[in-house]
């Protein structure tokens, strides 16, 4: 059984068919690429899966359970976490505080508990969270920037931060929305290494929306191509590379 499936997923915005009858499926530990020209409906698909938008029709199934129309925070709690193209981190908080917020839900400590717990319990809780935050920062190599204001970091570092912040929620599926955009070659390599190690060490499935063809072809095991909200092709990277419809849709792109 696929980990995540969409069945005939459709989203219409009064007159505009953003996504039409899209069938996607992702298996455990798979890296799936979702590609298509600008405006083809990739981000809308992510918005639908993560619950930010509700579909006009169609279903989303996670581990066989129908999660269509669930709230975004519920979907995140169930194990589907995404990154955003823009506004990826909390600009005004420090790097480590960003991580702390990201870890909040998983820390299992609610409002009432925070009020009633003794200073000793609070200290222990906080050091646990700090430990987890430090480990995540380690994975991305950002430890030396921990007390910096997140808004002061370079775009590449902020992207790395957003990925580990998504990791903090211990997702089963990671939705990466154009993770490579705005990064230089070195930063791309770092992010690729990060994504690979996530998949290898945690078995997390990854769906990547990406324009950088080189990265997609090299990293994704399976690719779905959409245009005008509809799936026009799917297959392994080599199949896609030779598919006439895909080449046509991308005429002029990298």
């Amino acid at each position, binding site marked *: 059984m696929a980990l995540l499936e969409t069945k005939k997923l459709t989203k219409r915005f009064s007159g505009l068919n953003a996504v039409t009858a899209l069938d996607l499926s992702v298996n455990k530990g798979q890296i799936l690429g979702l590609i298509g020209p600008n405006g083809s409906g990739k981000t809308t698909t992510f918005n639908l899966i993560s619950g*930010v938008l509700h579909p006009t029709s169609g279903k989303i199934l996670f581990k066989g359970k129908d999660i269509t129309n669930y709230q975004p925070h519920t979907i*995140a709690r169930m194990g589907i976490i995404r990154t955003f193209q823009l506004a990826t*981190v909390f600009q005004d908080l420090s790097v480590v505080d960003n991580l702390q917020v990201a870890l909040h839900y998983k820390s299992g400590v609610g*409002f009432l508990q925070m009020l009633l717990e003794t200073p000793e319990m609070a200290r222990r809780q906080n050091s646990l969270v700090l430990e987890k935050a430090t480990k995540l920062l380690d994975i991305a190599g950002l430890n030396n920037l921990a007390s*910096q204001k997140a808004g002061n970091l370079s775009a590449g570092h902020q992207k790395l931060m957003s990925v580990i912040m998504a990791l903090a929620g211990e997702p089963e599926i990671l939705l990466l929305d154009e993770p490579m955009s705005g990064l230089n070659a070195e930063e791309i390599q770092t992010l690729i290494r990060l994504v690979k190690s996530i998949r290898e060490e945690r078995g997390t499935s990854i769906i990547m929306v990406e324009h950088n063809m080189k990265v997609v072809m090299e990293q994704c095991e399976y690719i779905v191509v959409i245009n005008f909200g509809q799936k026009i092709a799917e297959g392994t990277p080599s199949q896609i590379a030779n598919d006439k419809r895909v080449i046509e849709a991308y005429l002029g792109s990298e």
Partner: protein
Amino acid sequence: MKLPKWQTFFPVLIVLLLCLLPIFMHSPRYLSLFDQLFLNLVLAIGVYSLWSVGLINAAQPVFFGLGAYTVAILIIRVHLPYWLIFPIAGIVPAAIAAIFGFLGLKMKGSYFLFLTIALCELMVWVFSSWKSLFRGQVGYFPIPQPVINIFGHSVRFSESLTPYYYLGLILVVVTCLFYFRIHGSRIGRVWESVGKNENLLANMGISVFSQKQICFIASCFFAGLAGAIYAPYMTVVSPTQFTLWQGIWIVLGVLVGGAFSPIGAIIGTVFMAILNLYLTKFTQLQPLILGLILFLVLLFMPSGLFGLPERIKAKIKDSTGKVSELEHKKIV
């Protein structure tokens, strides 16, 4: 959150001084001023807290009034003892906040402000018109003075203002402990992020709506408790005591002091209280002066009085990019 020694020492010193003040100062006028200040501080910190999740609440007097009316109604008509009514006076406005929240909290910040303005006007009308419950313009008068028995001593609130002073002081200290604890913790960071990027938070499994609800209910709970002290202290509860004008005054106090920190809310409210003292002679000019303050603060001092030292420091020094205590709590 670990505070440097002087930061814990200073507030303790202030509280100690405030505890000792009535011994040296018997003038009821000054005791009264301080008591009013304490109650206003409780209201202001609640407004700050909601401000941190991106919502500006001009209707704090509504919840304050609900607490006061709860005490009036339960003491006079149901004859419950004061100590029992006191927590109920916090729960009633908190419950109203929860109901109002279901509708109001789903809106964007600016709409919420308009909604609170509307709520304030609405509740004043309700207080005046629902005569069977609130007794209209006349309100509840006189409110019997509580008698509390502590360690065998009877504290008679009717004899002087001193018991009210201490009750107010206790409430404001408890409120401060509560809010400084919360806002210094991870929840404080979460709440500050609520105001800024809700999608990102939802993605972390945090229900933004629930966080806003919790914040709102807590702030109205404390407002109600302050109202519970206000009712017997004033001996009268009537609709004219809870106006939108007061609500705006409280919001301005938080803004002037610095809406990014509970300390800012305290400084600003004290500032407004002192200003109010001088302005009692010029009631005609009040709106003009308040407008002027608002204008000046928004233009030149958006982070308020408490934000001034950091801004001056930042202008002098080169910024190293390191997060200062203040920097990562800026409102603007």
